[in-house]
């Protein structure tokens, strides 16, 4: 571990900017902590605390100088590495000739500051989806510097310790910071991170600082807002496809797609085609999509999932079960954003627990 003071953090941000990175970090906008381009330490949410709960999010200004005493806003790395809308190819139609040109690879280099353990785990999850098959994602991902910050105050909807992804950052970071009473401890996870440490000329941290750093996440673990029992989870969901709880949750679910938009791992997207008004140029792009819409499963024979029940079941079963079959890991990192940003406060941990409590129950029409 190394020691970093607050000036050092500012130097780190300037160093990254000098190296040509677009520095993205937490900042307050529209009453929430969002990830956006930051110019320096002054843009960070100093003294800001969050109040999170099902369908509840608010920020409180305490006036103290602590920079990272919050869990996370609606944003994660997803919005940058897998942008909400991205052009895939352009088509020109001229004199009866049609030519398709793939979009040029992105040349943006992001340096993320303030990703949480759940966000870093989510990037690992999306890597398994996009890394091989998507050159643009790979380009952005390989160019990016990821700087995590360990959580001291998890939100009341957080359950990363149940999903094994936090609260301490253990994978996927170049650097990880832990905010102490005065300054930070720094750990490097990659050669790129070690290079930054060397460039800043950081000194080794003291044993006291290291103990304090570990204590931050040990205490955070105790402050975790929620838990989720993951034992036998894929089979639990697979064998309860006709559980009455799906109807119960569907009666509350608005199928608004908020949960899939804030989820840092949800990767489903539409490929859409737009054409110029003159008809001689067309663009194919992809846009975030959600399995909560009816058109998501549309085929020539109509939508496969027309009820809210089937769409909620698809989302939850994919996240916690099918994802493991598909990618060898859970699709949920336990960040709890889907609970916070659900307008009616549907809580995935509660839904799974309810199914587990009445494992094997079958809704009446199916039993008959």
């Amino acid at each position: 571990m190394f020691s970093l003071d607050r000036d050092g953090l500012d130097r780190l941000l300037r160093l990254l900017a000098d190296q040509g990175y677009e520095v993205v970090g937490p900042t307050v906008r529209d009453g929430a902590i969002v990830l956006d381009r930051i110019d320096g330490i002054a843009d960070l949410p100093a003294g800001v605390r969050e109040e999170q709960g099902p369908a509840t999010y608010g920020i409180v200004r305490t006036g103290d100088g602590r920079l990272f005493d919050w869990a996370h806003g609606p944003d994660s790395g997803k919005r940058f590495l897998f942008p909400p809308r991205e052009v895939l190819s352009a088509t020109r139609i001229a004199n009866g000739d049609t030519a398709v040109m793939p979009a040029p690879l992105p040349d943006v280099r992001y340096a993320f500051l303030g990703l949480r353990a759940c966000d870093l785990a989510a990037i690992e999850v999306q890597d398994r989806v996009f890394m091989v098959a998507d050159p643009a994602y790979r380009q952005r991902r390989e160019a990016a510097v990821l700087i995590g910050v360990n959580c001291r105050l998890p939100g009341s909807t957080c359950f990363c310790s149940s999903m094994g992804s936090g609260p301490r950052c253990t994978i996927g970071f170049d650097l990880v910071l832990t905010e102490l009473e005065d300054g930070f401890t720094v750990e490097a996870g990659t050669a790129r991170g070690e290079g930054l440490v060397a460039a800043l000329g950081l000194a080794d941290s003291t044993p006291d600082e290291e103990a304090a750093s570990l204590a931050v996440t040990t205490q955070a673990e105790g402050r975790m807002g929620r838990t989720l029992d993951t034992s036998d989870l894929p089979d639990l969901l697979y064998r309860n496809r006709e559980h009455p709880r799906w109807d119960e949750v569907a009666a509350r679910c608005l199928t608004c797609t908020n949960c899939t938009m804030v989820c840092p791992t949800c990767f489903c997207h539409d490929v859409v085609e737009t054409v110029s008004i003159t008809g001689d140029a067309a663009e194919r792009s992809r846009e975030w999509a959600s399995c909560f819409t009816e058109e998501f499963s549309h085929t020539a024979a109509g939508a496969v999932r027309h009820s809210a029940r089937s769409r909620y079941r698809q989302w939850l079963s994919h996240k916690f079960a099918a994802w493991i079959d598909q990618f060898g890991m859970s699709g949920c990192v336990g960040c709890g954003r889907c609970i916070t940003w659900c307008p009616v406060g549907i809580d995935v941990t509660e839904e799974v627990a309810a199914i587990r409590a009445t494992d094997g129950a079958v809704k009446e029409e199916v039993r008959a």
Partner: protein
Amino acid sequence: MTAVAVSEAEVLAGVAPRIATVRRIVEAAFETSTYWVTLDDPVDRAAYRFRPGQINMIGIPGVGEVPISVSSDAALPGRLGHTIRSCGKVTNRFRALKPGDKVTIRGPFGRPWPVAEARGGDLLIVAGGLGLAPVRPAIYEAIRTRDMFRRVIVLVGARGPEHMLFRRELEIWLHWMRFRGIEAHLAVDVADDAWPYTEGLVTSLYPKADIDPKVTTAFTCGPEIMMWFAARGMVKLGIPERRIWLSTERNMHCGVRLCGHCQLGPYFVCADGPVFRWDEIGHLMGVEEL
């Protein structure tokens, strides 16, 4: 099931759309036509191969893409037939195409019909409605390698005579198939006076086909409800679940397990399917709206 990553070569072949020219448009049934296309690039055209049952993403620039299985003979990959019913935004625009117009092709994608698995025994093909299109390349392959099988049986059903795919060529085709030792039977749910074959569901042809379950490998394709009854009927006859194969349909946007639309339980239909074995997905097909 284990997740299979898509290889880089597949991605390059699959993600980049290739321009193709419409050569011929042949009406195949009610609101349905076969669009014959050739790839414009001569190198692509010479290198392109597909296997029976695989899908292409075929698109009209500026309109969109649809997943369509290739319905032509895999031994002649220079000309690709796509049989498309016009029923949506993109497929309705196909009706306005004329020979010489440009389309885009990505593919082929997905798991093909395991035609070789039926060798040495009987191959039973059961198609319903548009489902004849995805199995047609398998029938061509069976005709080509007829000696590899003991019997080849083709059962085709449709809602009515006007929905029977490839009706015009089917008459010729039937005689041709009989000549090559292929048993074919047709049925429509509701016949008209001119219909000379069976009236009833495609499964009502099973007794007529005199299926020997011990040596039969079956492929079925059609509306999901039809496949459900066709496959369960086969199981009832005693065909092992591991030798019943079916081709499923889902919404698809990418073809390379990226977009998420085609999921069916743990599977991505575009890459893990569209052809599945009954013991892989039978239990999933029984769940409504999965």
